[in-house]
């Protein structure tokens, strides 16, 4: 065990400790041979008892996929809103030490590396710059992972690891321009305030560019750092956002600022962004390679027996659509008109058409599209349906993007449980 971890563990040992800290300390101390293990030191709480009261700060009751680090899923009824409310917006952290305390007096966003002028910005500095807004879907790469067959390890999301919000902030491009992009820049890396490992000194400041990686000699939880190719980073719609739906971001969604990369999976939307670094070579940190990779095959599909030999970093979202109302299993009266409703989105081309098949895919009929909030937003669809026959009905919904990308009828699979976008089915009982 590295001495730094032991030192940190000792710092954590100063009272008062909450149970969470105590658990960590006890576990680390146990490793260091100070205690004989910790199961008898952590009084049991009956499983399930805490479920009802497990509410996270600034959040309504969300489906708890994990509590440390928090992975919280948005309940389905919230997709009745075009913009997902901040307090219902899903949460996904990789590392257990979150920035639960942020002091804006000292917080700075730093831009450095391969630039003409390293710069730092306070939140007030960022707010004083010309602001820009975009409505965009933020979707976890592994949204819907729990439906993969055969199952794959990872956070077992249903479909609720996504949300749509109006993001406001400063275009990343403007900040890069101020710092001066040096010739030969290849990638732009992004790091936040969260930290991994067994224990951490909360006062430990970031050393710019000094990120912890996992090595064969010293495997450990690597810091969460992501990168974009410079040409992508220069896109005008990528924001360093300090507002979400007109308010400060909830801490669990990345206060004080997060990166917004419209059309791309949420893994790039660095929460509690604190460091931007330009590099003159491809960045291959753990969370870019080998993590968050997809097969180079069409729609990232492979099979367990034939895993793709070549992979690339996950990037743009594929096209999806969902039923929102009614919910699966609903009982609908025969010979009456019912308003079906749902959402569709893609990786930034916008939705051309949404079609409904009331008869299991044999025929398709066009749904009407709702307000256009932008090409990266949820697009609401509505469909009036009048079932005549009683019994169980299966309806399908299929979206096509403006670039002609269409959802597949057959479900795909890959080893990481990413990019599911098979046509969704809804079963209702007509009575």
């Amino acid at each position, binding site marked *: 065990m590295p001495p730094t971890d032991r030192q940190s563990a000792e710092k954590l040992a100063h009272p*008062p400790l*909450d*149970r*969470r800290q105590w*658990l*960590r300390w006890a*576990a*680390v101390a146990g*490793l260091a041979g100070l205690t004989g*293990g*910790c*199961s008898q030191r*952590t009084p*049991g*709480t*009956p*499983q*399930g008892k*805490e*479920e009802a*009261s*497990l*509410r*996270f*700060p*600034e959040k309504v009751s969300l489906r*708890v*996929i*994990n*509590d*440390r*680090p*928090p*992975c919280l899923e948005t309940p389905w009824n919230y997709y009745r809103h075009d913009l997902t409310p901040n307090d219902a917006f899903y949460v996904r952290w990789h590392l*257990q030490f*979150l920035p*639960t*305390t*942020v*002091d*804006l*007096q000292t917080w700075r966003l730093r831009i450095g590396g391969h630039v003409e002028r390293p710069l730092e910005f306070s939140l007030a500095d960022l707010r004083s710059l010309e602001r820009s807004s975009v409505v965009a879907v933020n979707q976890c790469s592994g949204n819907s992972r*729990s439906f993969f067959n055969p*199952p794959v*390890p990872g*956070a*077992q999301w249903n479909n609720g690891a996504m949300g749509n919000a109006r993001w406001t902030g400063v275009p990343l491009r403007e900040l890069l321009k101020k710092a001066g992009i040096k010739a030969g820049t290849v990638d732009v890396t992004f790091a936040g305030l969260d930290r*991994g*490992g*067994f224990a951490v000194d909360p006062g430990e400041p970031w050393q710019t560019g000094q990120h912890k990686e*996992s090595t*064969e000699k*010293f*495997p*450990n*939880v690597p810091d969460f750092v992501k990168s974009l190719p410079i040409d992508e980073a220069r896109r005008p719609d990528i924001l360093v956002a300090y507002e979400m739906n007109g308010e400060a971001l909830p*801490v*669990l969604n990345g206060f*004080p600022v997060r990166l917004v990369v419209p059309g791309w999976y949420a893994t790039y939307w660095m929460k509690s962004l604190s460091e931007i670094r330009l590099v003159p070579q491809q960045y291959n940190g*753990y969370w870019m390679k080998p993590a968050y990779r997809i097969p180079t095959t069409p729609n990232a599909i492979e099979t367990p027996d034939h895993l793709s030999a070549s992979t690339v970093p996950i990037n743009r979202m594929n096209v999806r659509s969902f039923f929102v109302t009614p919910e699966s299993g609903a009982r609908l009266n025969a010979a009456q008109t019912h308003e079906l409703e749902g959402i569709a989105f893609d990786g930034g081309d916008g939705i051309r058409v949404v079609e409904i098949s009331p008869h299991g895919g044999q025929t398709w009929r066009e749904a009407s599209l709702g307000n256009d909030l932008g090409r990266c937003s949820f697009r609401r669809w509505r469909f009036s349906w009048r079932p005549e026959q009683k019994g169980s009905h299966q309806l399908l919904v299929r979206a096509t993007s403006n670039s002609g990308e269409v959802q597949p009828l057959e479900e795909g699979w890959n080893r990481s449980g990413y990019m599911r976008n098979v046509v969704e089915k809804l079963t209702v009982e007509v009575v």
Partner: protein
Amino acid sequence: VHTTAPFRWGSLLATLAAVLLIVVPVAATLRGRTHSDPPVVPATVHHIVLPDGEPEPPPGPNRDQFTANCRLCHSPRLVLTQPRFTEKKWGEIVDKMMNTYGAPITPEQKPAIVAYLNSLHQHEQ
């Protein structure tokens, strides 16, 4: 000496007032900090408190070894919400935790932890 007495009283009162104005709030702040509820923080500090709702790992073989190692980085819930994997798959997952994330599991401990993980889904039935 006596002629200056009224002036001294005034000075003493002023000093007392100053002491009350400064020391009492500071003391209150300090007391608030040591007892930590509610915490006194400047307006520039944004602070949240995460709930403590970790489920206890269900009984099973080698549960102590699971607790001592796996809980260093994540809640048991992450494990309890996983689907049913084969023993081989659990072995691959533990390998990743050891070799990539640095879980301090010794090669001797690994089979014990895999056995615990493999036993979990029996509780569901």
